[in-house]
């Protein structure tokens, strides 16, 4: 993280939270954010270890440095939370998101949307004579740009997964 951030500057942080996969654990984490007035910009959750029974929650949030520090401490306080890492602070990370993007159109619009999909390396996962569903994986920025351009062609629906992230390098969490 760059160190010239001033104490009152709001910045975005991505947390990776390893939790016991038990009933109510997502509610606890989300309730902590809503109860204490923290933002959730993106949230994903899925089981990652069925033997140990762990799930991983990836949360993108924003706040001043002291708020980010509080969020981390508050997360660590929850009993079913095993590990918390602030991927933004602790080093470099890979962040990815997947979107399914439905575009409607005929004639030139179809051709244009296919060309755009090629440019963004999106795959066609469904097609009808008047529509496509594209699958795109990338940074949230890339997804935003892809969806933005499709809007001019005939965007009708979007589903996004939210961000999943992992630290770069060889170390375990």
């Amino acid at each position, binding site marked *: 993280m760059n160190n010239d951030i001033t104490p009152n500057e709001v910045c975005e942080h991505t947390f990776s939270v390893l939790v*016991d996969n038990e*009933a*109510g654990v997502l*509610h*606890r984490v989300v*309730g902590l954010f809503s*109860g204490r007035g923290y933002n959730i910009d993106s949230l994903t959750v899925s089981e990652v270890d069925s033997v140990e029974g762990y799930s991983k929650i990836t949360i993108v949030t924003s706040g001043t440095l*002291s708020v980010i*520090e*509080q969020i981390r*401490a*508050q997360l*660590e*306080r*929850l*009993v*079913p939370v*095993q590990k918390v890492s602030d991927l933004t602070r602790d080093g470099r990370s890979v962040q990815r998101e997947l979107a399914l993007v439905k575009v409607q159109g005929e004639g030139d619009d179809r051709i244009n949307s296919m060309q755009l999909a090629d440019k963004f390396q999106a795959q066609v996962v469904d097609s009808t004579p008047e529509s496509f569903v594209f699958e795109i994986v990338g940074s949230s920025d890339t997804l935003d740009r892809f969806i933005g351009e499709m809007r001019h062609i005939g965007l009708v629906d979007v589903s996004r997964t939210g961000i999943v992230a992992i630290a770069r390098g060889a170390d375990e969490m």
Partner: protein
Amino acid sequence: MSKKLYTGGEIILKALGDQGVDVIFGYPGGVTLPLYDKIYQQNKVRHILVGHEQGGVHAAEGYARSTGKPGVVLATSGPGATNTVTGLVDALMDSIPLVCLTGQVVSNLIGNDAFQEADTTGITRAATKHNYLVHSTDDLARLIHEAFYVATHGRPGPVLIDIPKDVILGTGLYLMPEDVQPRNYNPKIRGDREKIEDAIQLLAAAKKPIIYVGGGVINSGQKACQLATQLVRMTGYPCTTTLMALGAFPASDPQFVGMPGMHGTYEANMAMHQCDVMFNIGARFDDRVTGKVGSFSPGSKKIHVDIDPSSLNKTIVADIGIIGDAGSVLEDMIRLWDEKQPTINTAAIKSWWNEIEKWRGVRCLSYDQGEKIIKPQFALENLRKLIQGSDFYVTTDVGQHQMWAAQFLHFDKPNRWMTSGGLGTMGYGVPAALGVQVAHPESTVVCVTSEGSLMMNIQEMDTIAKYQLPVKIFNLNNKVLGMIRQWQELFYDNHESECDLSGGPDFIGLAEAFGFKAIQVTDPDEVCSGIEKMLTTKGPVFLNIEVDRNENVFPMIPAGAPHNEIVLGPNQNLKTVDDKSNVMA
């Protein structure tokens, strides 16, 4: 591990017994009937039948605070469980270790809007440190033991276990506490040595230090209180204790400067404001202590010790933050201090004390008794004189009487003062006194209250009388929601909106109806004899003292104001605070 099968009800009682529980506070209902049937057939765990589940939780809090052991509550599903919520949040805010067992409808009806079903774990998720819904009788012993572990380790707090009726009725294996490997919840106990050394250096070099002791020191245990006392005495520094920590350092010690905060002493607040090094151990910089955060103790370096990492830098940024248990950190600190023998700037400390003595000389707690109307401060001062030296415990409710009790009663030992600090729950005092008296049947237990709060859990007077517990209720009857009236007078143009209680019941008749001996005092001359009579009369006693309805609690730092804008008395104008967002908080 034995292979013998037990019913869920038996497992619950066995687990409680093995956790050293001798008493639980409860109220029965449909889904807990099979457990009550087991309670009937044993006498190892005593059950106190309270009048309301909220009272049960406060009683368990009183029990826990006064013994240092976790308190245990038992309530039924639905309304029984929802009635515990205020008590659970109270315990959460004040870090009181509790285990609350609630019954739940049978597993296959959960989610069906069954009779007396409530989503108890959902409702109490933000009201507890942690909670569990038990799915199988085989899990019961493990989860109960784990609940005790979680409630008492790290920053203590309430833990709830929701148990469906079929889990109580079913059979399963029992596990001893030592066979349960508590999950990965391992709060840090030992503070970092390097930081402790830095703290010693900073503290030893201070010219105007203050030691600011919080409830965490009491939670850590009697030994932590002794160590805190030792540190204060060996340094010769002034010590202030928060509302939650009264008694952690002896009030009779000349190094004690009183409580800090909104209704704290002038000397404590001025010392907090002017100090150059603040050593906070186990306090959380509550907004009732800091006042306006931006102007809080502007010139000091701050050392903050807390077992809860989220307490550090939450409101006030610490120059040295130490995560660890108060007792453990104090022990290391005193040992390292002895090894290093740092030199203290005695000349500077002497002139610091001179400054503090000047503030003390203001005598900020003085009041004018007058001839006719009893001043609440006068009543409490007499109570102090008459109980001093005896083996006593005090609980309070919430309002003016609570602040006066904190100011005028003096505690030389920890675990003797039970009050609802963080949540400020009216209705806490009477049930808490019940819990304390159950734990200490031979001691004097006084509940300082006022008629507004008293009415909020008055049904527990019946419980007290039923068990013939010799609780003394000290009712400072001002016939008004005094604290509300005070704020309305000071900040809302004296508009006394909905705070008058002059039409209230005949408290003497009411107390007698509950089975209390009742004493009425209306004249300043009768105060002393009234209190003596209360203390010497056997069994439950209700003392109704009619006090001045117009008295205000001073000193007062208006909410959101800095410490040096403390108002000492009625003749000093309250400054309007510029930060309006904070004013009426």
